[in-house]
């Protein structure tokens, strides 16, 4: 049987990390976190009085079960979370969903394209590959609106000397860095020694869709393109129905989808899903 009732976690610490964003450390109270947590999985966070919402782990739990999450303040639940203090108690359910494809990324040269908060779900993938001694095989293209809104500063600094990191800013920076990630993608690929053959992407759906299309044109197989799709979630366990994508639920069969399978699911509908002209980073 599923357990819908959350378990209690405590806010150990947090610090500001990008516009309206905070990096939190949580610790389980009176229960052991299920481990191992797969890279790219998520959990449901309950903020009493405001309900529950999905967030990704940005670190694997340590010995005490402490783990991190990068959270941007966007609405009802997150506004309330940002008024919380160290020591405050919240609810936790998880880990949920299918993460990034381990077997595939273990063998391939990995390109990661992340937009805004979309960097959070790929954080554990990058750390995992570094731990495996495969830092040389990782290229990250990280896109944000402007410098202030870039998140996960400490992590990016840590990665800088290990993996290939390229950062773009939509509305700031010099000509090598300014503009949308899609404008820089081929230049980035030309610069790296090991040519990537698998893509992990997370960010606004419009961005992922354009990046995926571009990568197909650049010779990636659609079976080697993986995206972490955001959907509104009210349960995380395939019951509330909100996160549907075709006949799947993003919380159960996703949030990580292979591009060709994602396209097939979308095609089940004849009314096209239109993306906004401009991507909005969360």
């Amino acid at each position, binding site marked *: 049987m599923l357990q819908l009732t959350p378990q209690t976690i405590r806010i150990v610490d947090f610090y500001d990390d990008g516009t309206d964003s905070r990096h939190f450390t949580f610790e389980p109270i009176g229960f052991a976190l299920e481990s191992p947590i797969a890279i790219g999985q998520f959990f449901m966070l309950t903020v009493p009085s405001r309900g529950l919402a999905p967030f990704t782990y940005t670190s694997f739990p340590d010995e005490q079960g402490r783990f991190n999450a990068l959270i941007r303040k966007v609405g009802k639940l997150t506004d309330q979370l940002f008024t919380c203090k160290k020591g405050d108690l919240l609810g936790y359910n998880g880990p949920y969903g299918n993460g990034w494809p381990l077997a595939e990324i273990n063998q391939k040269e990995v390109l990661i394209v992340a937009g805004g908060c979309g960097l959070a779900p790929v954080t554990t993938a990058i750390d995992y590959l570094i731990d495996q001694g495969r830092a040389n095989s990782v290229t990250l293209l990280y896109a944000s609106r402007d410098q202030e809104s870039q998140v996960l500063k400490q992590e990016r600094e840590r990665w800088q000397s290990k993996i290939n990191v390229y950062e773009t800013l939509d509305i700031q920076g010099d000509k090598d860095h300014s503009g949308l990630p899609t404008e820089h993608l081929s230049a980035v690929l030309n610069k790296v020694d090991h040519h990537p053959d698998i893509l992990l992407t997370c960010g606004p759906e419009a961005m992922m869709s354009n990046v995926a299309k571009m990568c197909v044109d650049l010779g990636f197989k659609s079976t080697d393109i993986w995206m972490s799709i955001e959907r509104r979630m009210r349960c995380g366990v395939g019951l509330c129905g909100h996160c*549907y994508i075709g006949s799947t639920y993003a919380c159960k069969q996703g949030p990580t989808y292979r591009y060709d399978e994602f396209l097939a699911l979308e095609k089940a509908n004849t009314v096209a899903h239109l993306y906004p002209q401009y991507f909005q980073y969360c």
Partner: protein
Amino acid sequence: MLNDIYLLKDLSILNAHLAQHYSVVRLAKDTDGEVTWTEQAGATSAPLFGHANLPLTSPKAFFFPEQESLYKFDGKTFETIHPKVKPIVLFGVQACDLTAIAYQDQFFKHDPYYQTRRDSVLLVGIDCEAPCKNGFCAEVNAGPHVNSATADLILSRLKIDDRTNTSEWLIVASSEKGVDSLRDLTLEKADEGHFKLRTKLGDQVRSQFADFSYISNAIEYLNDKSIPAQLWEELSVRCLSCSGCTNLCPTCSCYSTFEVIEAEPISNTLEFETVRCWDSCLFESFQREASDHNPSHKAAQRVERFWFHKFSDEYLPEFERHGCVGCGRCEQTCPGTIGVHSVMKRIDEVCCN
């Protein structure tokens, strides 16, 4: 199975027997003529038939209530709020709604709240004797006779004697729970002939249904993806997002959650209760995300989604049937024209050309 079939003239004997162990819930007509599921302890009359008195609401809410508390937080820990249940017998449920319950049993297989409520209910099905006004159960393999995998007991009227105003009922115990429920009740055994008569009567009812081939055609068009987007646009103009169809549909199960904050006077603290309530995929905000991206922001997408969920073959591996059980309630309730008959007819018209 043939060991567990019986004959009974007076159903009130069965009703009284079951009432010893269960609260008996049956269809009843209120003073406005509305048919609802009502607790009736000592009913002696024959149950109302769904074909003549289809209740507007299916028994869905007995297992998945419109609102239910899930858990509460007292400032320190979260505590499950277990559903309070008592043994209930739903006496006289027609085939389509039983099929829907079986469908939801599968969907909510791992939901502890649903399963606790479900375990406390005995399902007594009743075979319909004629097509109902909007129903097309025969077209979607959900009736008119009760599928024995969906009920604990089945009632089927074999004969009516107009002169004495009495009937002869076949009673089939079709699950272990059903067999148990008849223990200590002395009943006359029925034989294979009676069972065959039931099948024959079922075939007769089946033959009385109107021609619903447009529904089967539309299901085919939906699955081979030949319905033009423009048709969904046209149909969706008539969707008022009232959620009538999703509330009444016996297989709709989407929900949302909300929080209730209560002051705890003794400790002078606040308690937070999380409640789930029925939601509707036809609401514009159903999938809207915090970033304002809304994957189903057009009404056409949402209307298409509803019918995809009811009729797509992609759900067959999990449920072994389509989501629609042919009760016709969405047609009956829709203030626009996006109920099942209107939509399926229009699809058939447009796509067959």
